[in-house]
């Protein structure tokens, strides 16, 4: 906490709030990984961290450094943009792959492909 010593009280408290909210939301999201029963349900959970959790913590950071350096420090926006752009890519590819795997194993929990009888491994 070497540089935060100059932070005014309101900023400190607000930052604390943002950070705590963000961390809590992220924790809840990750908790979802434990609590949710199947992969397709679990895949929703981390989104909490990549949306509200992240934005909240980044907001805390923007606030803190803008006040500290007495100028708008907003480059955290970039992180938000990047994460928002990239997380869907990961999740989409991952869920689709999981779907493929489940289908080839003949799982009944997933919607079947149109020509399911062809999904047998080649001899």
């Amino acid at each position, binding site marked *: 906490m070497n540089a935060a010593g100059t932070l005014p009280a309101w900023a400190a408290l607000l930052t604390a709030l943002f950070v705590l909210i963000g*961390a809590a939301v992220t924790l809840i999201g990750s908790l979802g990984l434990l609590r949710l029963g199947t992969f397709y349900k679990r895949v929703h959970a981390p989104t909490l961290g990549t949306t509200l959790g992240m934005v909240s913590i980044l907001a805390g950071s923007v606030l803190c450094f803008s006040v500290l350096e007495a100028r708008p420090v907003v480059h955290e926006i970039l992180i938000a943009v990047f994460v928002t752009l990239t997380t869907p890519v990961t999740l989409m590819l991952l869920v689709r792959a999981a779907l493929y795997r489940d289908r080839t194993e003949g799982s009944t929990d997933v919607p079947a492909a149109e020509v399911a009888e062809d999904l047998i491994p080649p001899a």
Partner: protein
Amino acid sequence: MSPLAILGWAIISAQVMLGLAMCCATYRLVAGPRAQDRILGLDTLYVNAMLMLVTFGIRTGSTLYFEAALVIGLLGFVSTVALAKFLMRGEVIE
């Protein structure tokens, strides 16, 4: 308790929460059961780690750690994408 001390405690609590979040992700990483669960765990771990870095920046009052977080934010998904594609197609670059 001064507001600054509250901030200090808040950040430490936040870091502990993020740490716990990472532990949750690690559970999926270690326990699976399927490969996709592990990859999802890794992806979550990356995001949590990135947030941890941001809180660390606030904690030390330094913007020097920003780029590390930025790199995770921008490029962290590449390895997960590669893993996911490997699951789906059996190879990363076709």
